[in-house]
Each structure stands twice: as structure tokens, then as C-alpha cells.
């Protein structure tokens, strides 16, 4: 059974890129454009990894990660933050929120796949 990856990404093209690259590599993907229903999706699909865009229009990726990490059934799912290094609070804030790793935007496909492979 292929590993499932939950992707939270508001930009349609970036989402398409992630989905295409990951599915081509044999992963199954579940998508959320704003993270609104992320807890339900995570409970339902029990993903092996969550790819989290940090700069989201409504609830930030950091807050979504905190919500995930606050729930016992979900806190062990690794979260891979995808962000440009231009955040207020910097990398520390990303790790402080509970993200397990970080990958810089824009992504280099090879580096991206390598990082995903470490957690799946």
C-alpha cells in the first residue's frame, strides 16, 4: 500500500507541482488548499507525512501544525514545512511550532524528493 502524503498548499500551481512529482514517485496524496479541515483529513487518511505551506491566507501553517501536534492521535505524523526564509521569527518559529523539518521555497525537485523520502 503506497504511503499517503497530506499536502497543505494554497497556490494551485505549486499544489499541482507537489502532487505530480509525489504521485509520479508512487505516493498517494490528499490535498487541502487552506488547511481548514486538516484535522479531519489527517484522522481519516492517517498520512505518513504532511507537507505544510507556512504562508497561508487564513490560518498560518504554524498554527495548523500546533493543532496537529496537540492531538495525541496525530502528533506523531511528521510535518515538513515548505517556506521562503522570509518569515517573521525565522526558522526557530518553524521548529517551535512543532514542524519536523523544513525545505526552502522555491523547491528543487531532487532535494524535495530526497527530504520526503526521509520521512516516508
Amino acid at each position: 500500500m503506497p504511503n499517503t502524503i497530506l499536502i497543505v498548499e494554497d497556490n494551485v500551481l505549486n499544489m499541482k507541482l507537489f502532487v505530480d512529482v509525489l504521485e509520479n514517485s508512487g505516493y498517494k496524496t490528499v490535498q487541502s488548499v487552506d488547511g481548514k479541515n486538516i484535522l479531519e483529513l489527517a484522522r481519516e487518511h492517517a498520512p505518513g507525512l504532511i507537507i505544510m505551506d507556512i504562508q497561508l491566507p487564513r490560518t498560518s501553517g504554524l498554527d495548523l501544525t500546533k493543532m496537529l501536534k496537540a492531538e495525541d492521535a496525530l502528533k506523531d505524523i511528521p510535518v515538513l514545512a515548505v517556506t521562503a526564509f522570509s518569515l517573521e521569527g525565522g526558522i526557530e518559529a518553524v521548529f517551535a511550532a512543532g514542524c519536523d523539518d523544513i525545505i526552502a521555497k522555491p523547491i528543487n525537485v531532487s532535494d524535495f524528493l530526497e527530504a520526503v523520502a526521509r520521512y516516508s
Partner: protein
Amino acid sequence: MTSSPLSPKSTNKLREALFNEMADGVIMVDTQGTIIDCNPAFHQKFGYEKAELIGRSIKTLCTNEFAAKAPERITQFDSQDQITYETAYHHKDGTVIPVELNARLFESAGTTLFFSIVRDISNRKRAESELRQAHAELESRVHEKTEQHEHASRQLRASEERFRDIAAATSDWFWETGPDHKISYLTDSYFAITGIDPATVIGKSRLELAPDEDDMTKWDAHLVALENRHTFRSLQYEIVRPDGTSLPVSISGKPVFNDACEFLGYRGTGTNLTERRISERKLIETANELKGVLESTSQGYWRIDTNAITIEVNPRMAEIIGVSQSEAVGTSVYDYLSAEQQDLHKTKIKRRPVGISEAYELEITSATGNLVPCLFNATPFHDATGNVAGSFALVSDISDLKKTQFTLEKSMLEAKAANKVKSDLMANMSHELRTPLNAIIGFSSTIQAEIFGPVGHDKYREYLSDIQYSGQHLLELINDILDVSAIEAGALDLHEEDVSLSSIVDASVRIIKPRADTGQVRVVSTMDPKLPLIHMDERRGKQIILNLLSNAVKFTPEGGDVFVTSSLNTHGSVSVSVRDTGIGMDKDELEKALSAFGQVDSGLNRKHEGTGLGLPLTKGLIELHGGILDVKSDKGLGTQITVTFPTERVVQDAN
């Protein structure tokens, strides 16, 4: 013996009657001292019966003292037929009665007898003794008086000396005038001080010494005072010297009377006023000068007493409070202050009596209702006895200053707001720019990686590489713009930890190496292995070093060198220098390179691709660490850029 007209019998009777009735005692003694006879006055006087005394030695009556003298007295009869002397006899009851004895010697029936009249002189003795006592008392009183007198004169001398000392200290000479008010005496100091020969002055009245044109009302008053024998003080006039020059003096005097209250003249002191006049003149000049300054200055001058009542204002101050100078006098400071400003002033004025000067702002409400913001510079002033008598303030109208300040504050707020808008816009924009760029770079890298199958033509592969390169470049630009904006807006936060500069340099050299190799530029790093750790933002540090290296490699032609060195400076700061043998810059180019987007405008741009933000960004980042960036560049020879981290960022070795 002369013959008597009386018969012997009647003579005997008379003698007996005399003998018995005499008030004085009479006693007859033979040469042995044995009492032959005595009259009643005698034995009664001494408390005896006559029978008790007859046949008894007179010596038993005599006091021892006088008994001893008896033989000596007897010899006196050799030359005199009677002697008178004082002696004392014991009364029968033992008391001693002083007596005067008149003794004479006579022959009777061939026997020598002493016949003595004895008079009681107790009263006389008592009187004598009283007299002596009175005399002694008188003497002792005279002595006492003399002592008192001497003490008084000693004191007088001391007080005279004291007076002289005081007079000498407060005056220059002494003088005396006679009843006619002509000068009769002058001390020697008169000549020394005035240069006038006393001989030319003695015998003259003071008025004669004064100039002819002198103010007569002053002299009239003085002469009236003299006529009334009044003490006068500080009569000031000018003595005209023989050479015509004059000398200002001050004279004080006191009338002198003798014991009979007769007026003898005056006596007093004189003082040369020349020096005092000079200092007075200087004082007046200074005061005039000050007055001139106060009249003409653009600052207000406001002098008030301790109750905040106006004593004086200068024209400018009067103008500020909107009244005339004379109208201002007597008005309260509070007439020109709102209730709120009054409270402020009251807290300030409290500090004056303790001697505090200070500057503060008050808004004056002028008599015409204008509100004038003013800067007060207040200082306490003291009266002659050193007590605080009030305060004066130099007052500046700061309306213009306030206006400027307001404008400045407003434009600063506007600028801040504008900056906030700008940095928000930048942050937003960079996110918006980066998002499509993610897609461009992401998809092109997917094609490059030929994930979904091979790319058909080599030209496509080349174009993909171009897209990738341009995308990366655009990304760098966006990142730099964002950083520069953040620094300018003060919005860039440092995430500090203790970092090894050497490892930052090593990592940066590794990153730049491929690019340097491509350009055939040699990068040589010789970092001090003992360099202490620096408390800094590691990522920003890497950005600094990488920027310097990237610039150096970029502007160094093939075969050139880039040297990276470090140094621990004498004051404990730490520097890293990146030196290249590149094209270098002249002064204008250097200035341009240090300003944001400087390079973008330069002709170098096409040859040396870059954001043009590298150097300003690097400078901003090191300055954010409290450090400095120093550039030395020679056109055609190369550039050396040194960044220095300040001492306080250098981590002290635990050893």
C-alpha cells in the same frame, strides 16, 4: 618759792579744798613709788577707798607696760621740773583706764615727792581710736578707688587701642577741629594718602578745601549740623590739591566736649574714596552694559520677587506679555499664565530658594490673549545679605521652534507610516513574486530532472537551464530587496548565538568555489584558528561573507586571487577581510556601490550580473550587529573589504 599774800593757814585750807574737790585725780608718791596721799577723785576713779591706796606702791596700779617705763621717766626730771605722759591704771575691777599724767617733783620737809594730776583720757582715746579707724578706712577706700581708677584707665587704654585699630581699618586718617571748625590736627597718614601737606590744611575749614563750584545745599546742611553739634557721617566732597587736582573723600565726625560741657570742636575720621569711586564707576558701567544688552536682546528678561510679582521686564519681555514695561511692574507672573501653566510654574519656582537654576517650557497667555510658547531659563538672585530675593528668567519665544518641531514630528510620523507601508508592501510583494517563481523553478526543475520522460531536444535543455538561472537570479533579487527594506524599516531581527567565524568562512568558500573555478579565480582563506566565537546571527553572517566573496570573485578577472584573512584587533574586536586583485573602483564608483541599487544603474551591470544590493545589504547587516564595513579600493588594482564585529560581540574564552 615766792612769798604768798595769803596766810599759811588759809593757804593750806585752800590747798586742801582744791585737793579734795578737783575733778582730776591727784596723787602724791615718794621716790620709792609708795602712795603718800591721793584725793577722792583719784581713788573713786579707780574703785578704791583712800585707805586701801595709802602706803601701796603705785606700781601695783600701773599696767605692766607702763610700770617698766617708770625709771626712764624719773631721769626726765633731771632736765624738767614737770613731765606729762600717758599711761594706764588698773581699776579695782581689773579694767584698764587710760590716763594722762602731769607729774612734778617737789621737796617737802626734806623728802622728795612726786605730785601728779591724773586725768582719765578714755574718751579721748576712744575718739582717737575711732579717728584712726576712720582714717584707715578712708585710706583703704582711697586705695580701692585708686585700683578702680587704674583698672578703668587700663580698660580705657584697651578700648582706645581697639577703637584706633577699628578706625584705622575703616578709615584712612584722623582729624580734629577746634570750636571754630578749623582743622587743628591731622594724623601723618593724611599726607601719605592725599599727598597734601598737612601744614597747608591746618587752620582751614573744610569748606575752604572744597571746590568753589561745589553743591552748596550739601554744605549748608553740613554747617547746620556743625552748629547744632550733631555727629555727622560720610560727608562726601572733593579736596582740591594745591596742584588743582581733586581727591574724593568721605568725612565722619563727632563733637567733643570737656567736663564742663564746653564745646571743644570735632574729632573724626577721613577716607579716600578714589578706589571706591573707580569701582563704583565700573559697577555703573557694567550695569549700563547689562541694561544695554537687556534692552536690545531678542530674549525676554523677567525679574520677579519671591511672591512672583514682577520687579522688572525688558522691552522684549513686555512685548511677549503684551503690556508696556512700566505696566508690567507689580503684576504677577500668574496674570499671564493659564491655571494649568500656573501649577507648573509653582512647582518650578519652589526650587528657586534652594538655589536651583533650570530651564523649562511655559505657555504665556499675553494680555491681548495670544498664546506664546516660551522657554524659561530661571535663576535665583540674592540680596546684599545673601538671602534669595526672587528670581530672574531669560525667556525665549519658541513659537517658531514649536512650529518646526510640530512639522518635524508630523513628517517623522508620516515618514514612519510611509516606511511601514513600504515594508509591508515589500513583504507582501516578495511573497506574491515568490509564489509564481516557485512554480517556474519547480516545474522547470521537474522537466530538467526528466521525471515524466526525456526532453527531446538539446536546445530545450539549454533553455531550461536559462529559465532556471533567471529564476534563481530573480529570487536572489527579491530576497535582497526584502532584506534591504527590512533593515531600512528596522524590521530585521537577529537570531543570535555563539558562532565560529572560521566555519562560516569555510562554508562560504565551499559554496563560492565552483563559481570561482569557473572564472579561474583562486580563493585563499587563512583564518586564525584561535579566533574567538562571535555572538551573532549565523545565517546573516553567512550572507555577509558570501556577499563579500561573491563580489570579489565576480569582479576579479581570470587568473586573479581572492584572499580571506581574519584578525583579532588590539581593542578586542574581530575583523574578516576579503581582498581581491580585481578591477577596483574609484571614489564615485565606490559611493555608488555602497548605495542601494547603485550597481543596477552602472555600466558594469551587463558584464557583472548582480542585484546591486549586495554591498549595501552587507553593510546594513554588519551595522545591525554593531559592527562596521570598511572599503579600500584602487581602480585597476583591486578591492579590500573588511567587516569588523565589535568587542562586545566577541565571546570571551572560558580559559
